């Protein structure tokens, strides 16, 4: 075996130009794949992190039916019962209660529909980051009773600024009409209309007053220790809570448009992957086939000497594997280096800022990431293709008849 590796290795060097070209093709292909995948993963990470961290969190618990049309009549009857179960779950990092409901906002002549969210400020700032987007004024304080924080787009629509007064009208849980006036304490701006034009925040007690939900809330939002434990956490929550009465939603369900672009990125990655792999495989096949055809007489002599078919197959496949292995090492190194480098500096797309804003949750600077599972997958796939591409030439070589193969060049 080791002798055949030596022979295979030397055969690769024999036509080093062609081998180099093949190795270069594998390397460039692999490096490109690592980088492209790293870029998409980086985009996905950022997109998911940003989107979940602004508002949705990783998981939310509601009364069953709330999520469908955010009706105040589906508030949790006894949130304390649910809250008491949470400290025991180690995967949970932070959590907070909320009341979410639709309301009509008016200031002067202007009116607009938006979502009014009641939050526990001291807990909420540990769960979500929207408070960091407050550009003028301040975020809510626990003691606030008539302060409201609104998004810049909503403020514009209502023609209102810091210190201005907003009247809110909504359906309360007891069937009455809830109405209240708030003073704009802060205006936030994330740069994304899906936030800035849609959400306004008051404190939880203020919301309980407005919606007639004293001692109650519409949901609990939480972050997990990290995103990878979310599925496990969701399962344990589902185990703790009666599925007839509660719904446990992960970010995937909470922000379906993010899930959609996530899937879209995965699909485009697989398409690029397939194309690059086909090119690489054809390159390897071509190189190995050519080297076999050129060496017909040599194989004939080897077989006349007693080399058997299995050994010929082994030799040809080894040559391909070595080409692939060198390509994997070089391409893997290049790809990881490129991805780490750009991952550190970030890729600035602010020049194309307008286009980026359309995509939810993506900022102007993308940080590609290296994932070991991706690396392993790509390396194994190239290895597999190298073996696969060599099978046909190897069998062709092993099927040669020594007599014919030796005669092949006798007259040369």
């Amino acid at each position, binding site marked *: 075996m080791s*002798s055949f590796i030596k022979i295979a290795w*030397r055969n690769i060097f024999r036509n080093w130009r062609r081998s180099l070209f093949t190795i270069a093709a594998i390397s460039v292909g692999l490096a490109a794949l690592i980088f492209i995948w790293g870029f998409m993963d980086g985009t996905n990470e950022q997109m998911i992190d940003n989107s979940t961290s602004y508002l949705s969190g990783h998981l939310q618990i509601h009364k069953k039916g709330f999520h469908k049309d955010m009706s105040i009549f589906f508030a949790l009857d006894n949130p304390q019962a649910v809250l008491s179960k949470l400290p025991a779950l180690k995967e949970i990092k932070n959590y907070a209660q909320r009341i979410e409901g639709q309301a009509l906002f008016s200031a002067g002549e202007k009116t607009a529909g938006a979502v009014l969210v009641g939050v526990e400020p001291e807990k909420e700032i540990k769960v979500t980051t929207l408070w960091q987007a407050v550009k003028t004024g301040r975020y809510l304080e626990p003691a606030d009773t008539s302060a409201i924080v609104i998004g810049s787009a909503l403020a514009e629509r209502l023609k209102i600024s810091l210190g201005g007064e907003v009247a809110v009208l909504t359906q309360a849980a007891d069937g009455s009409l809830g109405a209240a006036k708030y003073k704009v304490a802060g205006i936030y701006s994330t740069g994304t209309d899906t936030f800035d034009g849609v959400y306004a925040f008051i404190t939880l007690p203020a919301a309980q007053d407005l919606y007639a939900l004293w001692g109650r809330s519409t949901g609990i939002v939480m972050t997990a220790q990290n995103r990878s434990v979310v599925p496990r956490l969701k399962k344990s929550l589902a185990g703790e809570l009666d599925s007839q009465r509660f719904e446990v939603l992960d970010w995937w369900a909470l922000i379906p448009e993010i899930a959609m672009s996530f899937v879209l990125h995965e699909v485009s990655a697989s398409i690029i992957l397939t194309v690059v792999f086909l090119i690489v495989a054809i390159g390897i096949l071509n190189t190995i086939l050519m080297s076999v055809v050129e060496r017909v*007489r040599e194989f004939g*002599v080897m077989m*006349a*000497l*007693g*080399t058997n078919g299995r050994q010929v197959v082994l030799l040809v496949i080894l040559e391909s594997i070595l080409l692939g292995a060198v390509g994997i090492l070089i391409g893997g190194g290049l790809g990881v280096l490129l991805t780490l480098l750009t991952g550190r500096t970030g890729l600035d797309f602010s020049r194309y800022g307008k286009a980026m804003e359309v995509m939810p949750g993506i900022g102007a600077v993308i940080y590609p990431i290296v994932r070991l599972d991706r690396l392993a997958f790509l390396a194994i796939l190239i290895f597999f293709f190298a073996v696969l591409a060599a099978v046909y030439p190897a069998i062709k070589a092993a099927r040669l008849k020594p007599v014919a193969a030796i005669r092949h060049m*006798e007259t040369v």
Partner: protein
Amino acid sequence: MPIVRTDNLGRTYRTGQIEVAALCMIDLAIEPGEFLAIVGPSGSGKTTLLNMIGALDSPSHGKIFFEEEDLTAARPARLAEIRLKKIGFVFQAYNLIPVLTAIENIEYVMLLQGWPEKKRREKAFALLKEVGLEGFANRRPADMSGGQQQRVAVARAIASEPKIVLADEPTANLDSKTGAALIDLMHELNQKKGVTFVFSTHDPMVMQRAQRLIRLKDGMIEA
């Protein structure tokens, strides 16, 4: 017991509708220790006969026996085994594996037979010395002359101590002086070690040195 014995051996080639009788009614026996030349003009069937003796090709009719074992009845795997263990080959040219050095080429056959590395090395060095190329152990074929390459091929052919070495026109690609020296080397090995050699040639200078001649013409043995 002869090493090789043929009985009314024949080989025909078919190309499309045309049938060519490359060999016809061959009866011969090769005894141990012989230094035998198969001679005849180009196309007379020398290569075809050697291939048949070397278990590389099978006859169209007649029988061939290797140490009284009927090769026409043997399976391909058995033929490969016979080739590996009992027959040494020297071809006209491009005998050596280009990526292996002289010493490694000699070792190759022993490698296939599963010899341990140390034993392989030692034997290969001894053989290289025997063919007068001790200084060329680490040369690749491309860095050796045609005559040197053929000498390495001879060393490789006898490495596994075969019953018989078959050399198909081993001197055809060499100048006459180098060719004569190669035949001398083979003769010396035949005399000193008792290696049985069968070689083909159409060169009168070369056939002179044979101990016995089999003359082929149009696929038949001339009286």
